[in-house]
């Protein structure tokens, strides 16, 4: 079930470690249930670890095309753009989710697409109340402004992905709702959805279950 506030091209940006890749993977797979041609585009130029390519098999099996730098997942630390990234803007028949690297450094990658993004994109800020540098609405808003400035764009909505990984409880998710609302008011942006891991089985207005397609390390 997809939230309102998405567009033909939906971009996920936000603080480092806020869960952009997890949400992007989820949205791409959900989109594929109703759309024939879906692309997930990894524009992370910051982190050599935990990239969309880790889910390549899952995505391809579901019929989602993954656009990713040839260097992603190779341990080669060279920020590289996938050569076919711009195709998601040109090929208007495709529904695309763009997964951006963390913080202002990661958002730099969007700068070159700023003209395209003005036309037909939803740009969503992924937030997690339980990350220390974005734990209150004021700090999260400051981070948001830095990201927008670096990427030369304006966010169009907020995705609340507040979680404590495997230890997340339903109460943790519920406790994050006022935080998301306050941030929305500060930034004058709609909170388009709160995502909660499906095993939590929470229901509520605007709360949506998310399958976590993450390979938990057996530790």
């Amino acid at each position, binding site marked *: 079930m997809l939230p309102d506030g998405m567009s033909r091209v939906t971009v996920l940006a936000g603080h480092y470690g806020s869960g952009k890749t997890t949400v992007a993977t989820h949205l791409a797979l959900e989109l594929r249930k109703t759309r024939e041609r879906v692309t997930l585009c990894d524009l992370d130029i910051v982190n050599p670890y935990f990239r969309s390519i880790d889910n390549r098999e899952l995505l391809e099996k579901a019929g989602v095309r993954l656009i990713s730098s040839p260097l992603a997942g190779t*341990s080669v630390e060279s920020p590289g753009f996938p050569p076919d990234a711009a195709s998601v803007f040109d090929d208007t028949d495709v529904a695309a989710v763009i997964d951006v690297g963390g913080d202002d450094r990661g958002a730099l990658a969007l700068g070159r697409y700023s003209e395209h993004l003005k036309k037909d994109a939803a740009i969503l800020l992924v937030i997690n109340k339980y990350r220390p540098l974005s734990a209150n609405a004021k700090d999260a808003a400051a981070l948001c402004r830095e990201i927008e400035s670096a990427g030369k764009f304006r966010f169009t909505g907020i995705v609340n992905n507040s979680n404590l990984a495997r230890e997340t409880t339903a109460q943790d998710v519920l406790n994050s709702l006022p935080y998301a609302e306050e941030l929305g008011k500060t930034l004058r942006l709609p909170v388009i959805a709160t995502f909660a891991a499906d095993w939590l089985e929470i229901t509520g207005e605007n709360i949506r279950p998310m399958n976590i397609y993450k390979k938990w390390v057996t530790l």
Partner: protein
Amino acid sequence: MSEKILIKGNEALAEAAIAAGCRHFFGYPITPQNELAAHMSRRMPQMEGVYLQAESEISAVNMVYGASAAGVRCMTSSSSPGISLKAEGLSYLAGCDLPAVVVNVQRGGPGLGGIQPSQADYFQATKGCGHGDYRMIVLAPNSVQEMYDHTYASFALADKYRMTVMILTDGLLGQMMEPVEVAGGEQTVFDKPWAVAQGKDKQVVNSLFLKPDALEKSNLDRFAKYRRVEDDEQRYEGYQLDDADIVVAAYGASSRIARNAIDEARSRGIKAGLLRPITLWPFPKTAFAKAAERARAFISVEMSMGQMIEDVELAIRCSRPVTLCNRVGGVAPDPKMILDAILEAKEKAI
């Protein structure tokens, strides 16, 4: 209970240092420890502290040398190749009996190696990586919570003994995100009459002793201190250890994988247990000697070609067979291979 936060191992190292009163951080980038320096670069100005990206690892460790001599809590961090560069500074810190906290988020080596996790710097950390006779206290966390807790505790430990404390961790723990409860409580503040500071009488912080007798005395005094550390600071954790026939020795990320194998062995009726050193120096010799009274065999699980295994053999005076179970080059062992090693050890020993 304080609230939990979701944090990366590398960020936990930074937050714990700040909580412990560290306001001087000198860094230089290298994967997989970059989040530590990046986090410090944002947080230190908020705390009216100093974040300085040096021009090299060597400069960074020598900035720690200067800051520590001035009496402040300070820290530097790197990953394996960068620690090699810091070796000279670590020796000078020891030669001046200066407290410092140094982090190594290990990656595969030797040389440039790779950016995936490794435990191949055990010798470097525990046997002295710079020149001369000296020791560092080496702490090996095995969770993001411990990354926080041990770093938080390390500053007081460094001040107490006027030594470098190294946090020896790896890319797996550094990159892992886990919920962490952050520490409260008072930090012990140590008087530092030896520190060089404005408005004080002349103080000399120096490792140069041209007279052999004086240099010998400084070494003997330092080693008397090291003996106190060996007596008082050996730390370990036992898991299913009390009745263990097969003892698995593992630290850091390897120890968490080993726990899974031990649970599986126990479910098959094999008395396997884990002895996890938390201090790699001083090595928990007493706990190993005690475990050897009952155990039939030991297995050292490492992400190296076999380094800690030598300390296991020494600690138990080779009284039991010790085998190595390892992966290297950025590959972590899996529970299955550790279970196989336990089954094999049982076959041979019992």
